[in-house]
């Protein structure tokens, strides 16, 4: 196995507010290898985006971060601001959720890509950078890239804009792409196209990708490994097959249950009842216990630990033994 590109160890992110500390991410540990797609799934407010923003150090001022994020031998969370700035966009690039607001309305798309290139490569002339940005637009499947480069964001459709965002993100051949719900704001047919572009691009550049989403369909089709988050904690992590077919966590199973089945076998949807808990002054016990159909007394008293249940799979549940038939995960 190749050396991991990013090793995150015990990352915790809290927001200091007037009414106390909101714990948005608790003891998150994971790694990403070059060329790998790691999907991070979970409900809104489960800490997916916060984790990504903390890695990029783009969090607001009142944030308390602890832990280590070793990227290529450097700790992202300990390095100086100028060093971090050099890494952003060059080594780690980010694709944002809403392509409608992630571009500056007063510059053409081409100008914005040129800028993204020249921030990290001041030696490149504007003409060269412009040529490169046209090539990039071509690469991500924007038709007539020459004309399109000199258009403004508002002249692009949503899908085109997201393609342009991808072009901007890969303009410096980053080692790691963080895609924060890249398809949430797009309609379904465009989602598929954009994901395809992301995959092609990723295959060409060999970069790793952290795909943040709450769309399990997207995960099944595109991820290598999956990490399920709930109420600031990792609930389960494993390969796509392990998560989808051999899940050992009631929360993951509930999530999978709640997907509508297109084969028509099921007639009813099974939503998870209730809402995620407040992350302010979290009580003891499993955060999912109040909504869990299988919860026992112990679930309300102590927080379960993340237990390794296979070579690559780990689950946070007191009842982990009941879910996993012995040997099911070892092939």
């Amino acid at each position, binding site marked *: 196995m190749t050396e991991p590109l990013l090793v995150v160890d015990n990352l915790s992110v809290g927001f200091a507010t007037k009414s106390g500390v909101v714990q948005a991410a608790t003891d998150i540990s994971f790694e990403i290898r070059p060329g790998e797609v790691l999907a991070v799934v979970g409900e809104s407010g489960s800490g997916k985006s916060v984790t990504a923003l903390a890695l*990029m150090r*783009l969090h607001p001022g009142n944030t308390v971060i602890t832990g280590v994020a070793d990227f290529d031998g450097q700790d992202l969370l300990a390095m100086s601001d100028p060093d971090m*700035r*050099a*890494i*952003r*966009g*060059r080594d780690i*690039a*980010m694709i*944002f*959720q*809403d392509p409608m*607001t*992630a*571009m*500056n*309305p*007063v*510059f*053409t798309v081409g100008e914005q890509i040129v*800028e*993204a290139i020249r*921030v*990290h490569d001041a030696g490149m002339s504007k003409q060269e950078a412009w040529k490169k940005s046209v090539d990039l637009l071509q690469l991500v499947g924007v038709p007539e890239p020459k*004309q399109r480069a*000199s*258009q*403004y964001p*508002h*002249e692009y459709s949503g899908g085109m804009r997201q393609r342009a*965002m991808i072009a*901007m*993100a890969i303009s410096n051949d980053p080692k790691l792409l963080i895609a924060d719900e890249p398809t949430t704001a797009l309609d379904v047919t465009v989602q598929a196209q954009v994901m395809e572009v992301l995959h092609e691009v990723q295959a060409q550049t060999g970069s790793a990708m952290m795909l943040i989403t709450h769309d399990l369909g997207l995960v099944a089709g595109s991820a290598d490994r999956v990490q399920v988050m709930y109420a600031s904690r990792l609930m389960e992590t494993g390969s796509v097959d392990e998560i989808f077919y051999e899940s050992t966590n009631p929360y993951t199973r509930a999530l999978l249950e709640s997907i509508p089945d297109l084969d028509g076998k099921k007639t009813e949807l099974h939503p998870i009842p209730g809402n995620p808990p407040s992350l302010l002054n979290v009580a003891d016990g499993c955060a999912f216990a109040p909504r869990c159909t299988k919860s026992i007394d112990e679930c309300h008293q102590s927080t379960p630990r993340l237990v390794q249940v296979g070579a690559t799979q780990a689950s946070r549940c007191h009842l982990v033994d009941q879910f996993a038939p012995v040997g099911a995960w070892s092939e």
Partner: protein
Amino acid sequence: MTALDSPKSESDVQPATFTDTAAAEGLSETPKSFGRLAWERFLSHRLALVGAVGLIVLVLLFWIAPVFSEYEFDQRNVADRKQGPSLEHWFGTDEIGRDLFVRTAQGGRYSMQIGLLAAFVATLFGTILGTLAGFFGKFWDVLVNNMVNLVLTVPAIIVLSVFANRFGASAGGLALVLAGLLWTRIARVVRGVILSIKEQEYIMAARAAGASNLRIMFRHLLPNVVGAVAVEITLLVGSVIVLESTLSFLGLGVKPPNASLGTLVADAKGDIDSDPIRVLTPGIFIVLIVLCVNFLGDGLRDALDPRAKVADNANSRKAKRAALKAATLSTGRPVANVSLRDGVAVKKTVDGDSDDGGGLS
């Protein structure tokens, strides 16, 4: 391709119906630059055009016309004192026989120069402080807000009397004094715009791409401020001219024999019963300058909005008539009024109930 794309009908891009607007937006093949769109929107704004043309005429009148006059602004001719308008002296003469046309032109030049200079200095100062306050917040925000409050609590006319008396003899000095009082409005506007823009996702995206604070400020925030500031500048020019005239009227600004529009009014005020025209002419020019500048600002505000898409204009009668017609046709009911906002029509039927423009598309 529809006919809307041919260059001939370029000026007809104003929406005849709403489907046409959509077509013009979606199908235009050669992308128009922001400047080009802004220019088109500006041209479709009638009052702004009136303001621009008026200002050009005034500039020509103040700067070029006196060259052809045989009189100097300080040339006395006591024999011809206090004359009314005539072919010889277009605006008449004052109490020591100076030609009032030449003096009015000189006063107009002075007022315009002061207006532009003070507005420029105030904008520079206000933009820098507003950007610092909006972008960095905390210490800078407190500092700038307190500075603004301090300036606003100071009784303007007293400060102006003191400082204008000391520095007001030169145009530059007076402009600086006025700018020192008027930068607060710009600072507040800039701060507000920066506060809202810096929370936009594209600022976060720029940061994620590795942009530094300075780059974000100059490349991403300030271009968004230009529209709002351009409008403020024009309003500011108007205020400066009025204030300068006031000060000069009170004898605190320009010193004789130089003239400003304010001193001309002051000189003539004693004879207002017998010779009201001498008071009126400089007064009318003050009003004309300020009016034209404000019209211009109005047009700039519409033209420089980076989110406006097509060269449509909410006040355009042509667009409004077309929408009114379409609304009447689609409902079968007479429609009393229709207002266009962001390309969406809100119509009000005669019997008073209003509904949104769903039926118009």
